[in-house]
């Protein structure tokens, strides 16, 4: 199949960027979206041009490194990561728009690569447990009800790709923050720091200049890991509880 790509090109931080049109020919339906970009980049390199920069690592949908907005949808038309999106989701002759995540908290470094350090700083603020080191505790030492364990696990599958921010009309990072708050909040190990964690993480989220959540739900709809929207409700509940009790 032959594809026309309109890709965001930007030389570096703070530079003016623009959409540039490229033709990619003989694309196989079995290629992933990133492999199609590889083909384009080989062509550009042979022609002596600068290849399109994009983030990627595992290419099997588990690391969270890749992610671009394709035709106006974060990670494109399938609910998965960009690396697991295949060209069979497109038709011969399609014009495909490719843009980076757009948010003040995610400045573009180059082309389609954005700096997601804001997410790291939210985790640094409280997305951890202060566990003692030593030998691993017995797996049965801490019984956890099945429903809680399942909910914690579902939330823990967040790979921090940033699609939630890209899709949100407010550029809010609340689904990401809520996933970690819910993950640790459902488990006994997360309890001692539960109130302080949610307060610190929400403050850091706001300080990074993410927008506020308006419960529109675009984040959960594009999330490749299916982090449910009710995690945000859990975060709100934990924060209001922490503010009311004052016991941090």
């Amino acid at each position, binding site marked *: 199949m032959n594809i026309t790509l309109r890709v965001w090109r930007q030389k570096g931080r703070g530079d003016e960027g623009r959409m540039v049109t490229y033709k990619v020919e003989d694309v196989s339906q079995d290629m992933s979206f990133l492999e199609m970009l590889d083909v384009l980049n080989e062509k550009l390199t042979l022609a002596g041009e600068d290849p399109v920069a994009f983030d990627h690592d595992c290419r099997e949908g588990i690391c969270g490194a890749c992610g671009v907005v394709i035709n106006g949808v974060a990670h494109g038309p399938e609910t998965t990561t960009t690396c697991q999106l295949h060209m069979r989701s497109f038709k011969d002759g399609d014009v495909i728009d490719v*843009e980076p995540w757009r948010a003040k908290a995610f400045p573009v470094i180059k082309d389609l690569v954005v700096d997601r350090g804001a997410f790291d700083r939210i985790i640094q603020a409280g997305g951890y447990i202060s566990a003692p080191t030593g030998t691993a505790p017995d797996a049965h030492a801490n019984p956890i009800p099945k429903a809680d364990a399942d909910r914690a696990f579902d939330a823990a599958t967040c790979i921090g790709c940033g699609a939630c921010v890209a899709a949100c009309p407010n550029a809010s990072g609340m689904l990401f923050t809520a996933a970690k708050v819910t993950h640790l909040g459902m488990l006994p190990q997360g309890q001692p720091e539960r109130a302080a964690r949610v307060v610190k993480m929400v403050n850091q989220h706001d300080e990074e200049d993410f927008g506020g959540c308006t419960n529109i739900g675009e984040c959960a*709809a594009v999330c490749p890991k299916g982090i449910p929207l009710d995690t945000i409700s859990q975060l*709100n509940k934990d924060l209001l509880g922490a503010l009311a009790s004052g016991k941090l």
Partner: protein
Amino acid sequence: MANSTLTKQRSTAFKSTVALKSAMAVTGGILVLFLIVHMYGNLMIFGGQEVFDEYSHHIRVIGEPMLPPEGALWIIRIVLLASVLIHAYAAFTLWARARRARPAGQRYQTRRKPVQQTYASRTMRWGGVILALFVIYHILHLTTNNIAPGGASDSPYERVVNGFQIWWVLLTYLIAMIAVGFHLRHGIWSATQTLGANKASRQRVLNITATAIALVITVGFLIPPFSVFFGLVS
């Protein structure tokens, strides 16, 4: 931020986006309760002029002689006004924040395709502004009677009947009530989620409830004006 004390963190969190949203949820809830009572009161128009005017008079003398004349009414008005102001303050603050979070120059070049968002959720902000303007018009029309299409009157019943016989008055109220319906449809659901009441197993029920309440309020408010227009109440 990472090193500041927990006490300071707590006071910062009182100004967080989540706290602002919660303020919107609580004040919105007060306004929804008011709308339900208001809608119920409006339906008394079907009891005739005497019943409706007596209802309107009764609101002004609730609590007498414990409270001065219109005492209870003013307490309600102050609570409602405070709710509207807090609701609007939080809304504009979050609106400005959202604009800052994706500033000009960092917007998407291609139009983003909505994946599952509702029309109601997309129109909350401008819809809210339209509703605020409508409330001013509505108070000038039926409370203070400064705007008196069809003729002013001391009888609330006559104000209603005079006004809603005119097509454009009916039309402004129709548009406003549909806007109320959309605002409540997303607002009620959003408030439950914001106050921490949502769970995956409950999400569907909450959404259906929000739609049902929004529909009942919209239809309930529209019945009296349409009845006047079509001559069922005169």
